């Protein structure tokens, strides 16, 4: 692993709106190694989707401006021409979207929509493209794929459509797949199937995956590393094991506390009080302080930097709380989970 596949450095994306400038992504840096699964977690509006749309160059250029660097195999995608971006999109980097009900074109047969992705990037005949489409439909587990390839999107269920979307993302063997809340719009049993499929596919195809979600459970099941985003910034990051065993940021605790679990006898779900802040005018200091149960005077004034947790250089967090308190609170939370798990 000499060079990371994707190296995002100090990415900032701003949107011009009628009310002012919204800093949707504010100084985000991360790396994705080949074959790695990176989970990006956060509430709606935390900037996780915009980060990925920026990587894909899919923000509306009329309203959005981005600075920083998005190095894909060393090439800065922010500086790339739109035609260069097009050759990368759908070929080397592919995307799976949140809502499979609306992400497929209702007037074209799915075979045609899949084949389009092949033809756009490869010098092949339509027939070959269809053959490839059929192959992928089978790979993602569409029953009777030979017949279904000539069906229209409305003839598929939500879960089946998401399989089609996954097939479309995989069709050109991309090195990186960005999955933007791929299971959010699906019902629970289907979610599990789609996650299992993504995992299997990831093993088979060896693509790196950025998994965007607001659901820590999804991250726990799929990701190698986790980034927790809050209000356009990264508040904590680390290997999935570290995040779950030694969470260090009060916001991460909040996310973990709000995970519904069947195996704990918690009276009720923990909630993070209040709403995510407006990015038009974010709070001073630590952006989480208005909602944080541990907020101190310094949190209002000084913006915490991302710092390594103890000697673990892979695990970083941005919080002013002292180590002892954080260790104690994290231990309490983890104990609660393990106690729940062992009592069941």
């Amino acid at each position, binding site marked *: 692993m000499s060079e990371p596949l994707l190296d995002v450095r100090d990415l900032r994306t701003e949107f011009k709106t009628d009310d002012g400038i919204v800093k949707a992504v504010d100084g985000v840096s991360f790396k994705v190694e080949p074959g790695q699964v990176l989970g990006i977690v956060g509430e709606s509006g935390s900037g996780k989707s915009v980060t990925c749309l920026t990587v*894909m160059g*899919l923000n509306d250029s009329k309203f959005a401006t981005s600075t920083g660097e998005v190095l894909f195999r060393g090439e800065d995608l922010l500086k790339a021409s739109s*035609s260069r971006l*097009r*050759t*990368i*999109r*759908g*070929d080397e980097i*592919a*995307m799976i*979207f949140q*809502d499979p009900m*609306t*992400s*497929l*074109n*209702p*007037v*074209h047969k799915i075979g045609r929509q899949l084949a*389009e*992705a092949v033809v*756009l*990037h490869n010098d092949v005949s339509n027939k070959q493209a269809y053959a490839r489409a059929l192959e992928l439909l089978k790979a993602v587990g569409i029953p009777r794929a030979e017949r279904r390839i000539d069906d*229209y999107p*409305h*003839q598929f269920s939500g879960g089946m459509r998401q399989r089609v*979307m996954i097939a*479309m993302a995989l069709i050109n063997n991309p090195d990186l797949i960005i999955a933007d809340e791929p299971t959010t719009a699906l019902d629970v049993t289907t979610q599990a199937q789609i996650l299992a499929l993504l995992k299997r596919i990831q093993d088979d195809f060896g693509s790196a995956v950025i998994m965007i979600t607001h659901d820590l459970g999804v991250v726990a099941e799929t990701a190698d590393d986790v980034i927790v985003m809050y209000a356009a910034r990264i508040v904590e990051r680390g290997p999935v094991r570290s995040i779950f065993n030694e969470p260090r940021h009060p916001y991460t605790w909040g996310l973990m506390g709000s995970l519904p679990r069947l195996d704990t006898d918690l009276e009720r779900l923990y909630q993070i009080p209040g709403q995510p802040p407006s990015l038009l005018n974010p709070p001073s200091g630590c952006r989480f302080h208005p909602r944080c149960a541990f907020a101190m005077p310094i949190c209002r004034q000084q913006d915490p930097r991302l710092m390594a947790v103890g000697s673990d250089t892979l695990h970083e967090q941005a919080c002013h709380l002292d180590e002892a308190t954080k260790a104690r609170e994290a231990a309490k939370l983890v104990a609660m989970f393990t106690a729940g798990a062992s009592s069941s």
Partner: protein
Amino acid sequence: MLRYLIRRLLWACVLFIAVTFVTYAIFFLVPANPARLAAGQSATPERVEEVKHFLGLDRPFYVQYAKFLKRLVIEGSLGQSFVTRRSVNEEILRAAPITASLVFGAMIMVLSIAIPLGIFSALRPRSLLDRTAMIYVLIGISLPSFWIGLVLSYVVGYKLGWTPIAGYCEVFSVPEAAACGGLWDWAYHMILPCLTLAIVVAGTYVRFVRAEVMDTLSMDFVRTARAKGAPEHRVIRKHVLRNAMLPVVTMVGMDIGLLLGGAIFIEAVFGLPGLGGTALESIGRFDLPVLQGVVIFGAIAIIIFSLVVDILYAWIDPRIRLT
């Protein structure tokens, strides 16, 4: 698909019955004494009674309507003019092609103006082109058609002399006494009326196409197409347009039907003896069968075009076929 077709056809029949019923009721029950109108101004009361019996007006309403419907459906006859005694069918068959030329010609012009203009406006909102188009739209919607017609007729027809000021020429079966005839003369005479109607109608269509395209551009599947790496022109052509044109097809179908009922003002301005002119004339003469004929013909045109639109729609949008 077949079930869909049959359902649409049945629905068209229901619509036909309803429309003829209402029309019949309006024209033959509302006037105090249609027999008096039919018999003429100076008829004696005995003569009026005779006419009343002859026309079947002394029978109960449902019998009259049933006879009317039977004649219309089985014989395809709309009756006879009170004034000229000629069959209403003949009147309409003579006038309808003129109105149809006007309407179809105008619709072709409308679409060739509105579709490109609407698309470009949608792709570059707030640009100079978009703003100019919006001004045009406002003018097209606000100005009355007869005014545009008169101005065009004066400027293009009279001052510049590029087109005739008014009048109509037959394409086929040109009468002996006619001053002009044939395809060329026909087109030459139709161009200004069509343009007038097109200017009036196109405004609405530019707005409509623009709104539909903008709406479709914000759809998720458009983003999917871009994420595939499709170039913008392909995204527009393959993914946006077909979806955006769905509602436009409906509107065209409805409007053609509607306009076939008579583009009265424009026909009047350019002296076209179309359905609008025929209707106008028959109103002046209290010639109820002719007026009723025009209305029923217009209604049937709307029904038929709605049916055509429904079928076209199913062909363009696969989601319709199942429902």
